[in-house]
């Protein structure tokens, strides 16, 4: 007969509020094989853990069940305590009566009955549990950073400075991301380029960083400490090893009228181009869609003028496999567009603002480019339609953000601050101009933030109107902005020369596809999910993958940099050890019954299953079976679910355990 101890936690009041924990503990005591049961206010606290250790010793327990929160939260804690008491840690299990019970139910009677059931079935699982020994695997001390914006750059530099190798993969031809596009940054109004470009150069020159620009993640295999990442380096049509960055190709390229993405389409670039003069690497790329050579086969001017002969029209995509131990995802954000969307799209555009057809209604990032010294207007605020200096500018906050009717209910966090900054930049450049801001409420938490906002309102003469804009349309060369001032309680109509919308921050295009390749989770807006909102803000639920920056949710630069350094610290912690201890929850094949259909091999997301030949003593092949590499197995159990003959099982989740759990009910 088993001797199992059941410990029921109150979790302060989190569980005891809806579950009669004393009754659950008492009923647990009546389950055959349970030798000890009790309830306690905080099982995870020091006295709680001591209670567990003492009970194991006093009652000679051979298995422990802690009925408390999710195992994601405290399984490690209690397994450590059980281990300290001399039990094999894998004979300690958790019954989740918080997330799975007390938090989601209201009826005390029914919640208590359910908690008792959870305890009952988990006791059966503990009974059938086996002692397991941890597995150690080597750690590849090389990190992959996906994304070369400020988040990726900061994380890469921190990890590289700690002495580890870093591979940085950036989708665009240059690193720098959105921060490189900004003019000046809040709350100090220092020039974005001045603080960003030195970091970009540091990345390029760092001996520990390998930089792949114009590259994307093709495939990710493996697990914490031992990922195999395949990077697709898109054909640049320029040989990076030969190019000196002289720029002659760009000056000679006859296609000069292509809207420049870096300037939000307001400047022009050539078909062979670097996105902006400070780009890193300073190696051009040929935009094959717009290049005459690629479209009609006639031109080749860039190739003729290139001294070192770096232009290569025949260049193909190349696949590079990089073994890495940790991954930092820093793919950033994109801005919401008010353009018309398909009817069935979850996020809708703004018909009342003309769906983006009015040229002088621009978004915040376009304003950044207009205000930037390196922008299409050389830093002069000139409106796109006729190049005149606007004298009345209306700024609208929360366009897309906090707009449930458009499909986005979250706050984009940075817009209040950057709109205040925009009004200042405008005021500094157009002294006789007037800025109006329509806002819902000004959200300015952060060091020096509220002072900054107050300065915009009080010293820089921006007129803040609390209310939303209902409609905008073109009248002559003006844009009529119809809104309401809810503080005064009147309708407002402003004839603006230029309108700047603070559009919502959204996850990057393809964020969901990358998440699927990485095996990390994401929310309904495609922002990546952290492992714990408070205690694990930079970790993913998938071990060895960390998050930095706006890919996890809207963030300003200080927060992004902090998170990037935090992610780097997590990577360094991982790299501090040569061997990684892993949970022994891995699959095992019963070779006697395995028929070698290898369905498990086909479905294994970790590539952990191999074929193994069983031979007799004379060397004759008896049969071929599947074989699991425990170092690679991630313990997901997909093989177990797939195996038609039930010949593969996950330790700790055997069919016997699961059937016993079902039968206990």
């Amino acid at each position, binding site marked *: 007969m088993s001797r199992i101890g059941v410990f029921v936690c109150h979790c302060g009041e989190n569980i005891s509020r809806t579950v009669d924990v004393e009754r659950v503990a008492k009923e647990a005591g009546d389950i055959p094989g349970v030798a000890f049961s009790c309830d306690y206010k905080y099982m995870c606290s020091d006295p709680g853990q001591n209670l567990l250790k003492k009970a194991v010793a006093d009652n000679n327990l051979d298995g422990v069940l802690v009925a408390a929160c999710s195992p994601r939260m405290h399984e490690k804690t209690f397994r450590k305590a059980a281990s300290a008491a001399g039990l094999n840690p894998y004979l300690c299990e958790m019954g989740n009566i918080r997330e799975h019970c007390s938090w989601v139910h209201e009826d005390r009677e029914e919640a208590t009955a359910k908690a008792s059931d959870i305890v009952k079935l988990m006791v059966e699982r503990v009974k059938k549990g086996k002692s397991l020994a941890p597995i150690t695997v080597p750690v590849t001390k090389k990190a992959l950073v996906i994304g070369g914006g400020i988040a990726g750059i900061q994380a890469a530099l921190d990890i590289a400075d700690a002495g580890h190798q870093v591979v940085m993969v950036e989708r665009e031809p240059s690193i720098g991301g959105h921060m490189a596009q900004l003019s000046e940054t809040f709350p100090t109004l220092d020039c974005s380029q001045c603080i960003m470009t030195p970091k970009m150069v540091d990345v390029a020159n760092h001996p520990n960083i390998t930089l792949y620009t114009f590259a994307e993640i093709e495939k990710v295999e493996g697990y914490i400490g031992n990922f195999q990442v395949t990077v697709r380096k898109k054909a640049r049509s320029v040989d990076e090893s030969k190019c000196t960055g002289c720029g002659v190709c760009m000056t000679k390229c006859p296609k000069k009228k292509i809207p420049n993405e870096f300037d939000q389409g307001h400047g022009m670039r050539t078909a062979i181009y670097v996105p902006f003069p400070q780009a890193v690497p300073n190696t051009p790329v040929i935009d094959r869609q717009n290049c005459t050579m690629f479209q009609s086969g006639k031109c080749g001017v860039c190739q003729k003028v290139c001294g070192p002969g770096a232009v290569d029209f025949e260049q193909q995509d190349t696949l590079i496999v990089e073994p890495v131990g940790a991954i930092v995802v820093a793919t950033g954000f994109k801005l919401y567009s008010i353009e018309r969307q398909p009817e069935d799209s979850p996020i809708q555009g703004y018909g009342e603002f003309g769906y983006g057809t009015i040229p002088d209604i621009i978004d915040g990032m376009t304003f950044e480019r207009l205000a930037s010294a390196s922008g299409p207007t050389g830093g002069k605020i000139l409106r796109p339609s006729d190049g005149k200096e606007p004298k009345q500018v209306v700024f609208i906050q929360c366009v897309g953000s906090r707009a449930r009717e458009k499909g986005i209910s979250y706050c984009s966090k940075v817009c209040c601050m950057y709109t205040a900054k925009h009004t200042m930049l405008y005021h500094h450049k157009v002294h006789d101009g007037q800025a109006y801001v329509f806002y819902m409420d000004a959200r300015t938490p952060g060091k020096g933030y509220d002072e900054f906002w107050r300065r915009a309102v009080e010293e820089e003469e921006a007129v803040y109107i609390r209310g939303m804009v209902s409609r905008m349309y073109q009248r002559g060369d003006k844009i009529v902005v119809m809104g309401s001032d809810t503080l005064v309680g009147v309708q407002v109509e402003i004839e603006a020369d230029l309108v700047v919308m603070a559009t919502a921050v959204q996850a990057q295009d393809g964020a969901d596809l990358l998440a699927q390749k990485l095996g990390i989770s994401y929310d309904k807006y495609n922002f990546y999910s952290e492992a714990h909102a408070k205690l694990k803000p930079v970790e993913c639920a998938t071990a060895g993958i960390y998050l930095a920056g706006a890919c996890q949710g809207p963030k300003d630069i200080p927060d992004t940099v902090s998170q990037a350094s935090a992610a780097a610290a997590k990577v360094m912690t991982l790299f501090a050890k040569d061997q990684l201890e892993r949970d022994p929850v891995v699959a095992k094949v019963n070779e006697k019954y395995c*028929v070698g*259909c290898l*369905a498990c091999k086909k*479905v294994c997301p970790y590539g952990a299953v191999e*074929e193994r030949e069983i031979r007799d003593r004379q060397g004759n092949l008896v049969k071929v079976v599947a074989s699991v590499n425990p170092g690679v197995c991630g313990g997901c159990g997909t093989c177990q679910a797939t195996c038609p*003959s039930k010949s593969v099982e996950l330790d700790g989740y055997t069919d016997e355990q699961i*059937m*016993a759990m079902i039968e206990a009910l």
Partner: protein
Amino acid sequence: MNAKAEKIRVASIDPSYYQAVTDAIRTEAVKLLSEEAVVAVVGYLPGRRIGTAVPGLVTTPEQAQQLIFSPACVNNLSLYLTKAKKGVLKKGKVAIIAKGCDLRALAGLMGESQVKKEDIYTIGIACAGVFGANSDRKGGLTEASIARKCRECTVHQPEGVDLLVGTLPELPQLTALEAQELARLEALTPEERWAYWKEQFSKCIRCLACRQVCPFCYCEQCLCDKNRPQALESSPRPAGNTAWHIVRAMHLAGRCGGCAECERVCPMDIPLNLLNRRMAMELKELYDYEASMVPQEKGPLTRYQEDDDQSFIK
């Protein structure tokens, strides 16, 4: 089917077609065995009663002269490469006679690493159809005697075989009885359909002939024979019977080639192929998958694609 088509129905298949196929099989088998290109040919031999045929393994050119093909050659011979004659493949390359539906099973077995393409030599038959279970076999293959599965066969002409024998005669236009029956069941309410299947499964005596005859049931120990833990009750009672037939249908989903051998051998006449076909429809709808006559690297349920239907995740 319209009235006119009914009238021009072909009464029966010309016996000369079977003779031509038989001759071609014999010639090829003799050639393969005398050249020692294969160690054995898995084919059909005449049964003891007239008008019957039995599966047979021939290893000499003389025996090969006995091989036949007739509407009585109902068995799916790919079975003999996995179970009863598993040792055969260890001796060397084997030739096997395959109808279109059998070929789909062979392709599936190759995809599941049970048979290697280089270990076998497939002799595909352009097949006009075979007898149904319990049918009156006098007067050759007629509309009355043809198997239900053959009435709506889409694989008369095998593909990707090493040798194709026979030329298809003019085929009769037949009503798709199985499709009609499936449509009838689909039109029922879930309760009525459940009642129908409950009644069907209650007939089951758990002889497991369906398992023994299925080329895909090649496990060395069947899940239903396991007792620690026991997945389903082994005695023939309604709950265990239902569980068994559901497990069988699920395990065959995305694999079944539609040979309908399970239904043929069922002594209790449970329409098992309806279940197989229903699962096939499901896979067609969800993953645009159909059992193929050429081996696939991954089946629909062991493959993940980014555009897979995910509507089941709520």
